């Protein structure tokens, strides 16, 4: 099918529109969103398969030829991310059925989730820089609504900050696109890359590269620009937090990877050096946050920041091992962060608090939850048979082979601190003397556990079967490290 890359976008869009007409019929909404997300996963699987067999898939919307119209491009990286995103969406929607509450469900919760998906999937599969801005806005607008939906005081307060930060970064994105347009005179990403390779990466293009790093760094929470994230991600209800933690920051990371590998790869000395330093600092500050807090939400939130640093470090060392490591780690991290947020969400629902010091002994009454969390924690830290291992191994390998010894040592040490921070949750939350918690009986533990268990099983399979996934990843790396493949696929010269 020629229009395959647009299908994963259209399904959530149409579903969102349909769901807007039936806000009060909660049961029907659940059924429709479940079916739609299953179909999205199916379409994404077909897309990955198609890209694997036939190379990069492009759709020129309205049949306008490549540099003049909007092109949707699915290379292996974006197809894999589309698949991961749709799986995470499916899991969070299943989790939402029993946790989000009727009040929110009646006020357009499911439609907004679908629109968030449209934005994220669109940002992953667009081939046009301004179109990427538009999809960012679709995603952000949906995320504002999801963040504030329910209207508790903390949500209102944190939404103001989140909105302000993103308004500023969107304005910077427009400014960056304006500057880039004035130099290359085109918006199609493949065509921009071609033009830049013709004129060479002059000083002004390096400035624009840094501007893009700032823009996507605010979205993706890299070191000096992560300040908004811990507060904002603390506020929303758990399934929303899982969606945000797994998807939103990763879109920023993907955009950095895309623009830096496609546009700004001619003069690596300056920009990539900055990227490496910032990613290391991101890891360090994430570690400080992750081991400082006694609040389960905060610990996982700071773990997001650490992972962002690790992925960007793997990308910025630009060896083949580093690149494939960062893609492995990116997909692993999306799955595992969603699972961890859903699991701590259950802990919070059972205990009625997010303070670790008030929890304890959950393993006696909830062994299933405890062991799922244990596996998730080990996978997050990168213990060998599980999914975090291969990515980090390759990143470390790439770091050593391009002689960034200190940075690589910090990446290695970060695993230790990550393990410490999640084991702190395990030891204090699940071991120890059982306490009685209020509201314990009301929590439907069994049905809530379905979604995180799906994700953990996937993550374990991802780790164990990394050999089977390797051809997909290496195909993604090939496009990332060799932009001409991308350009030729889009411009068809």
């Amino acid at each position, binding site marked *: 099918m020629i229009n395959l890359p647009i299908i994963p976008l259209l399904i959530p869009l149409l579903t969102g529109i349909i769901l807007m007409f039936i806000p009060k019929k909660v049961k029907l909404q659940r059924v429709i969103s479940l079916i739609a997300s299953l179909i999205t996963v199916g379409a994404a699987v077909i897309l990955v398969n198609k890209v694997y067999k036939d190379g990069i898939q492009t759709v020129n919307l309205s049949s306008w030829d490549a540099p003049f119209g909007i092109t949707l491009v699915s290379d292996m990286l974006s197809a894999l991310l589309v698949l991961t995103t749709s799986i995470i969406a499916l899991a969070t929607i299943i989790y939402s059925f029993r946790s989000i509450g009727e009040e929110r469900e009646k006020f357009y919760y499911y439609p907004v989730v679908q629109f968030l998906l449209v934005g994220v999937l669109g940002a992953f599969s667009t081939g046009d820089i301004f179109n990427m801005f538009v999809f960012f806005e679709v995603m952000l*607008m949906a995320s504002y*609504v999801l963040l504030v939906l329910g209207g508790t005081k903390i949500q209102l307060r944190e939404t103001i900050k989140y909105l302000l930060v993103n*308004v*500023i970064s969107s304005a910077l994105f427009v*400014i960056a696109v*304006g500057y880039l347009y004035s130099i290359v005179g085109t918006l199609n990403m493949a065509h921009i890359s071609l033009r830049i390779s013709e004129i060479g990466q002059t000083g002004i293009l390096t400035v624009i590269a840094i501007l893009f790093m700032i823009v996507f760094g605010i979205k993706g929470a890299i070191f000096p620009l992560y300040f908004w994230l811990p507060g904002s991600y603390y506020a929303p209800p758990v399934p929303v937090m899982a969606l945000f933690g797994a998807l939103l920051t990763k879109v920023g990371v993907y955009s950095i990877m895309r623009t830096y590998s496609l546009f700004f790869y001619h003069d690596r000395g300056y920009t990539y050096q900055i990227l490496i330093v910032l990613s290391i600092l991101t890891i360090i500050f994430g570690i400080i946050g992750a081991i400082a807090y006694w*609040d389960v939400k905060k610990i996982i939130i700071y773990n997001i920041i650490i992972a962002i640093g690790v992925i960007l470090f793997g990308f910025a060392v630009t060896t083949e091992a580093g690149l494939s490591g960062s893609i492995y780690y990116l997909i692993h991290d999306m799955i595992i962060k969603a699972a961890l947020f859903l699991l701590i969400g259950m802990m919070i629902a059972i205990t009625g608090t997010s303070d670790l010091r008030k929890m304890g002994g959950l393993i006696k009454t909830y062994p299933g939850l405890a062991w799922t969390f244990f596996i998730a924690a080990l996978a997050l830290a990168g213990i060998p048979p599980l999914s975090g291992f291969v990515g980090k191994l390759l990143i470390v390998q790439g770091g050593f082979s391009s002689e960034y010894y200190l940075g690589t040592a910090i990446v290695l040490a970060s695993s230790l601190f990550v393990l410490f921070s999640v084991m702190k949750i395990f030891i204090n939350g699940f071991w120890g003397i059982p306490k009685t918690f209020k509201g314990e009986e009301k929590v439907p533990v069994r049905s809530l556990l379905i979604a995180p268990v799906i994700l953990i099983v996937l993550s374990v399979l991802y780790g164990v079967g990394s050999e089977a996934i390797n051809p997909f990843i290496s195909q993604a790396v090939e496009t990332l490290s060799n932009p001409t493949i991308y350009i030729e696929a889009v411009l068809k010269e």
Partner: protein
Amino acid sequence: MEILMAIVIGVLFMSATYLMLSKSLLRIIIGTGILSHGAHLLLLTMGGLKKGAAPLLGEQASSYTDPLPQALILTAIVISFGVTSFFLVLAYRSYQELGTDNMDRLRGNEKK
């Protein structure tokens, strides 16, 4: 002409930055409005301000102004319009709920 526009846009960005660093929420929202004005004018300027007819084929001129930045600006305007109206309603709602518009008092992590 572009130089003049660049200076004006610079002044707009300066005022926006100043306003967004203040304590009152309304001043911050005014700052975001000015910031988006600056960004839109910048798009227009960066597309080039060379003389030409309005991009309508009925004009039958020998040269037209670049239509692409205008389309980009139109898109960016409606987006920032939507975001600003959401922001204003959010500010109104949080004034009702939290009873303050002072950003200094919107701190902390506890569910007060």
